[in-house]
């Protein structure tokens, strides 16, 4: 089976700062790949490179074998296949929950309104927000907003979902509801790349743990193996700080 998302010796600089150093990583279909690591290790940047919100300076990133940086590739078409959920939700404040979810299907896919609304309502039900469809983002709690953001990304039927520290801006009591939605998504076979500080979630839902530090992947492994018995010194050090 081929890899769905491939990072091939990716180099990324911010000015003179080398933030991703020859990072190679593959995410298989239906796999939940959890990227962890200390702040500033480059994990969010890696995720943002995966749908070209950041440009890379070396190497290649491929989705289903198609290089994202290929000048012939239609980046808008590629991005439709990559759902992204942000730390700060980034819901559109001038649109209701339902309008947030249906905007891209209507404007990018050009499907008709009844169909978009039906699918949008279904997705909002799925994330437990059937009653809040016509609410504006500022009438929703952080947890609810983030669940709308997940539904919005799902509305384009992406092949892979990227989660960029999606619970970091939430009050502790709201984290659970968002993780629950992600857990269901993983169980349904969605391919996911998750950057998180929630180690419980990483261990329970992740198929593979990727530890990054200083712009490099320092260790990858199955969750049980990584959390019980890390192979590298860096891994041991990181885990010891969590306790």
């Amino acid at each position, binding site marked *: 089976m081929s890899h769905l998302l491939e990072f091939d010796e990716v180099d990324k600089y911010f000015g003179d700062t080398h933030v991703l150093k020859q990072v190679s990583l593959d995410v298989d279909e239906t796999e939940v790949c959890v990227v962890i690591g200390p702040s500033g290790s480059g994990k969010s940047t890696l995720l943002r490179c995966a749908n070209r919100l950041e440009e890379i300076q070396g190497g290649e990133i491929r989705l289903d074998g198609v290089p994202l940086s290929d000048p012939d590739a239609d980046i808008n078409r590629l991005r439709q296949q990559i759902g*992204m959920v942000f730390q700060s939700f980034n819901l559109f404040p001038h649109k209701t929950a339902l309008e947030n979810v249906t905007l891209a299907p209507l404007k990018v896919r050009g499907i008709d309104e009844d169909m978009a609304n039906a699918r949008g309502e279904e997705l909002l039900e799925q994330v437990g927000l059937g009653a809040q469809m016509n609410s504006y983002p500022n009438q929703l709690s952080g947890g609810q907003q983030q669940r709308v953001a997940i539904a919005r990304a799902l509305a384009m039927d992406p092949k892979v979902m990227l989660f960029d520290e999606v619970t970091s801006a939430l009050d502790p009591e709201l984290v659970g509801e968002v993780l629950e939605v992600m857990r269901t998504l993983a169980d349904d076979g969605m391919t996911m790349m998750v950057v998180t500080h929630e180690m419980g979630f990483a261990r329970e839902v992740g198929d593979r743990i990727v530890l990054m530090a200083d712009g490099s992947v320092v260790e990858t492994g199955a969750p049980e193996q990584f959390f019980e018995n890390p192979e590298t010194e860096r891994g041991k050090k990181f885990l010891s700080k969590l306790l």
Partner: protein
Amino acid sequence: MADSYSGASTEADTTGAEGFLDDETLKILGASISSFFALGVVLLVLYILATQVSFTLLQTIIPRFLEALALVLGIVVVSSVLSVTSGIFVGLARVSNTAITKGISAAYVQFFRGTPLLFQIFVVYFGIPVLWPGTFPIQGWELPTAIIALTLNHAAYVGEAVRGGIGAVPDGQMEAARSLGMGYVQSMREVVIPQAWRNALAAVGNDQIILVKDTSLLTVIAIPELMQQFRLVNSATFDPWTPLVLVAIAYLSITIPMGRLVEYLEHRADWGGDSR
């Protein structure tokens, strides 16, 4: 040293609270001063209406002021539509990633914001026709001049308001739109501009009210607008107050509804009633 400093500041705070200018006194003082001025203005207006305004003259000059009002309104509507539309494009050019559009729009704003409107009216009225003799009408060049000068001048201000409005939309909005597969133009149109528009609304509204008042400058190129009517009536009758009262009423009858319109538009873009 630190102790004595904080001690001194505490003492000052206490003095402030117990002294003459505490919160309650300030509030009363503010209320008294503003009502004093308001009352003064009302009394002055009543006094003028009672002693200075000739109602016979008023009746004879009302028609010409109505005509002037209609003319001003026409100029305002056309220049408003043109200046807001082109101002949006100026604002978009100001935030574009292309050096050339950025540079041209910045220079445009610098020039039209940096020189007086009166100068710009003169450039269009006197300067442009001599560049291509015979191309422009000798009669009737005033109205095109008015529209062109007001539009060019106010598009610069609207452009700056729109630029500020776009700048206040968080980067994450564009990123979220792009990550859904929407193109740059589509993301701008569907996501960034509606929010930027609300951010810019107050400033744009302010500018358009100034545009109304700027039509008074058109008196220098003999457009029969409101100030021109004042000058004609005043020089024929030596009565300043009767035409002045009409001028005030005429301008306010445009600017007050415009202010309400801006309030209405702001209210409509409330999006679920946040506190902004």
